[in-house]
């Protein structure tokens, strides 16, 4: 099956690039990982520090980063380990925080239909927020998401994340006041940038406005982590049910 971009924007330069050159694609992916690694590093270290502080062993701390590999849910997990909560509740909470990945998987699955199923399901282990967002950025650029590019992006992010858990667990107690360094708030700043990256998409502003409003309302009423799923569903539903002059109509016409 040939690869088709979801949102054809001008595909600059893509004629000159050889997407079959695995090494070059891998390196292009690695270059894209640099800002992600920087933005996530303080968070990875903070996680390692807090996990040990909440009573996890160094081994358990690293295991969690290596197997769950999802920052927000790891934070929720270690928070709950400290309290006396039933194991199944803990697993459910991790599931709730990570439920958004179902949507990532559906979207990235579309962009990687040209991979074999096995490759896709191995690669999607690495489908964290920035991995998904960067892959969608590449789709928006009119370039194919090749496996080499995807793994070039994924592996540095993953390896640094696991290493940071270890470093944070071993040496995190040495940092007297991590908040002063802004450790806890760098990811929201980075995520805001990713939101902006998609501003050329149809219905971007209404989707962002609705998701922001609903997620804030849900945060203060239903509580965390449900505000993520509730806010996201609200924005997505808006796009799905937008009246005829919107994106749905455009796409209907294109398919007709």
């Amino acid at each position: 099956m040939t690869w088709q971009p979801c949102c054809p924007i001008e595909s600059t330069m893509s004629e000159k690039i050889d997407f079959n050159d695995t090494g070059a694609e891998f390196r292009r992916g690695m270059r894209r990982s640099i800002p992600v690694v920087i933005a996530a590093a303080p968070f990875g270290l903070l996680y390692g520090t807090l996990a040990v502080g909440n009573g996890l062993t160094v081994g358990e701390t690293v295991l969690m980063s290596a197997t769950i590999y999802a920052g927000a849910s790891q934070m929720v997990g270690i928070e709950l380990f400290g309290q006396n909560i039933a194991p199944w509740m803990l697993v459910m909470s991790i599931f709730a925080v990570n439920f958004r990945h179902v949507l990532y998987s559906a979207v990235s699955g579309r962009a990687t239909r040209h991979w074999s199923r096995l490759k896709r399901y191995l690669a999607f282990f690495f489908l964290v927020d920035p991995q998904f967002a960067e892959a969608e950025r590449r789709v928006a650029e009119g370039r194919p998401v090749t496996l080499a590019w995807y793994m070039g992006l994924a592996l540095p992010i993953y390896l640094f994340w696991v290493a940071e858990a270890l470093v944070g667990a071993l040496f995190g107690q040495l940092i007297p006041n991590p908040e002063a360094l802004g450790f806890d708030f760098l990811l929201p700043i980075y995520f805001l940038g990713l939101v902006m990256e998609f501003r050329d998409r149809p219905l971007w502003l209404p989707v962002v406005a609705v998701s922001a409003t609903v997620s804030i309302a849900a945060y203060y009423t239903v509580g965390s982590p449900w505000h993520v799923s509730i806010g996201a569903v609200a924005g997505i539903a808006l796009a799905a049910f937008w009246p005829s002059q919107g994106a749905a109509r455009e796409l209907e016409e294109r398919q007709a």
Partner: protein
Amino acid sequence: MSTTVWIILAGALVTYLTRIGGDLVLSRFERIHPRVEAALNAVPAAVLTTLVAPVATTGGVAEAASLVVAGVMYLRGGGLMTGFVAGAVVLVALRNLVG
């Protein structure tokens, strides 16, 4: 193995299921309805927004200012890195100055 390790592994399993689940369901359909297509196109902005908006309301002046500065830089086309660094500098500066 300790209970903690089992919980971590179960958490890893459910997380992995979320990462393949969407594609497992969607890849069963030959054609995707335009409304589903429109919904999927909205996923990045919708989900990423929920990771920013609520925490923006819980922070103080430093947090709000950092988001505003980063947002303006992002919009002016400075690129992802420029906006991020600008926001981070404002955050750390204000946290240490204003406290």
